[in-house]
């Protein structure tokens, strides 16, 4: 069978299964198995599946996935996130303190949690009702919080960067460190957007926030865990003291201790965190297992190599290829969630990026930013629905979408900046080397 027949066949089957509502991990497996059986007999295919499952899961780097997921769930179920938000805007004598505080809390939360949805849910759950009560415009409030959640996937630890590193075989540590400067730039952009919004539509932000002052003890119980866990992760990886998996393990234990001792985590919350972690792993377990079968079929027929050669033979400018890939992801992101997209598309596309001469660490950050756009664009923008679900009666999904538009604009601006000045992402990993 020709490579393009296999490529188109796999793609066609996958799209068909996804469109009829088959869960994505099963769609990936169901598309791969017919081609696998075309290559091998059923019993050999079983052996291939067995070898691939063992090979992919006995992996020390991959071990950081459940650890970072658990870390985020523990933090999300403690009072650290809500208290962090309270601290960030309590008695801050500037107009729009609650909106700036939300961005600060999302960034701080992003330093300890790698999931954008958990970030939006945790900070949004406490900040959205309060911002609406204080008189902030509903579009501004929902936009700030939906976009703020995306900071979690750029500021390390980031689950998307982790999966990207696993698929493309890049250093997870370098990827995490590469996300730091773009993360801070994005925080600055978000702050500027709120300031400009307040300047252009002063009626959307109340004159002053009448929030209660946070007791110092409570403030410390929110800041210290974030600083300690954030430092454990970034400093240990940056200085090479620990691998990302070790950083994940140590920070997970530290999080558990702090969430129980100062974060108000109770037994039910702890069990809930375990359940949520294993539920996520249940999905990832099958997704990655199906993904390796999909990858095996692709590699057997040399689809990624031939696809790359085909694009290279067209003589397109590398930047044209890059823009095409970014557009592809932005459009695909409207329909698929980031983790599935990573395992379905990246194995075929990253060789093309490498062949175009781009640094794969740099592209990892570019990819993550496009995934942030993906979670903010309808119809399958996860963060949009998470935020709307928090205030279903007051806010419509259209309000959240309109509120997110300036923030999506800032993500696109960051993409453009990253393309013009790649050192934004590569400077810190360069020093690390």
């Amino acid at each position: 069978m020709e490579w393009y027949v296999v490529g188109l066949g796999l793609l066609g089957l996958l799209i068909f299964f996804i469109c009829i509502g088959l869960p994505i991990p099963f769609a990936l497996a169901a598309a791969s198995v017919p081609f696998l059986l075309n290559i091998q007999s059923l019993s050999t295919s079983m052996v291939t599946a067995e070898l691939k499952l063992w090979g992919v899961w006995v992996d020390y780097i991959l071990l950081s996935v459940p650890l970072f997921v658990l870390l985020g769930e523990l933090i999300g179920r403690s009072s650290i996130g809500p208290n962090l938000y309270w601290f960030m805007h309590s008695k801050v004598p500037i107009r729009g303190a609650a909106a700036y505080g939300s961005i600060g809390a999302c960034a701080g939360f992003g330093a300890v949690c790698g999931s954008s949805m958990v970030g939006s849910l945790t900070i949004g759950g406490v900040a959205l009702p309060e911002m609406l009560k204080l008189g902030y415009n509903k579009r501004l409030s929902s936009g700030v919080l939906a976009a703020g959640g995306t900071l979690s996937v750029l500021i390390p630890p980031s689950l998307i960067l982790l999966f990207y590193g696993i698929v493309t075989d890049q250093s997870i540590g370098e990827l995490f460190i590469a996300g730091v400067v773009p993360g801070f730039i994005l925080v600055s952009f978000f702050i500027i957007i709120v300031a400009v919004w307040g300047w252009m539509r002063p009626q959307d932000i109340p004159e002053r926030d009448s929030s209660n002052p946070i007791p110092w003890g409570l403030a410390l119980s929110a800041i210290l865990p974030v600083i300690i866990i954030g430092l454990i992760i970034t400093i240990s990886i940056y200085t090479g003291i620990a691998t990302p998996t070790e950083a994940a393990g140590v920070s997970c234990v530290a999080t558990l201790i702090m969430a129980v001792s100062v974060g108000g985590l109770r037994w039910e919350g702890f069990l809930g965190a375990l359940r949520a972690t294993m539920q996520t792993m249940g999905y990832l377990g099958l997704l990655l297992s199906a993904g390796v079968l999909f990858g095996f079929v692709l590699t057997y027929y040399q689809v990624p190599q031939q696809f790359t050669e085909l694009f290279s033979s067209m003589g397109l400018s590398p930047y044209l290829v890059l823009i095409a890939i970014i557009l592809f992801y932005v459009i695909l992101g409207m329909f698929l969630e980031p983790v599935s997209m990573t395992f379905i598309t990246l194995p075929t596309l990253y060789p093309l990026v490498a062949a175009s001469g781009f640094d794969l660490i740099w592209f990892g950050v570019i990819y993550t930013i496009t995934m942030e756009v993906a979670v903010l664009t309808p119809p399958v923008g996860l963060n949009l629905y998470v935020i709307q679900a928090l205030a279903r009666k007051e806010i419509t999904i259209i309000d959240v979408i309109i509120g997110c538009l300036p923030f999506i604009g800032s993500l696109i601006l960051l993409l453009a900046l990253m393309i013009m000045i790649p050192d934004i992402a590569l400077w810190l990993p360069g020093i690390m080397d």
Partner: protein
Amino acid sequence: MRLAFTQTLERIALILLYCGGLMVLIQATWISYGVFMRYVLNDPDGMVTEATALMLVPVAFFGLAYALSKDAYPKVTLIRDLMSLKVQGILDRTNLITMIMIGVFFSVAACKATYKSYYSGAASEILLWPRFYFWLPVAISLIIFTLLAMMRFINYQPPSSQDFADREDT
């Protein structure tokens, strides 16, 4: 009878889930201990890397059946939702059959791997821990998942116009 069997499977799924949660906690603690031994006592633990990596194999599958019982797998239902209720019912059944077939494929592969590793005595590379220990929970998780998917297929109730109206309201 059918309900009791489904509830039993869901209970086993929950037990497997907590087994997985416990293993993640063990992994986190063991890794932290390894870092402590290396830097504080200058006596690196030679087991931690391979042992915790091996434990990841069952952890990856322990949550499968629970995720199914909570309908937690991501899916795109935009097109399905546009169809008539009858077509939605057909698509749901088709999807469940496909999930069962995928479940059977992986279950058989895992059972064969368990059987082979038990009789061959295959072991991990450094610690020489029998692979059988790690394949067995994977096989059990996949079998429970497949059985649960079968029960969901048998117990399947097609979407009614009332469900449709409720969804429109939300």
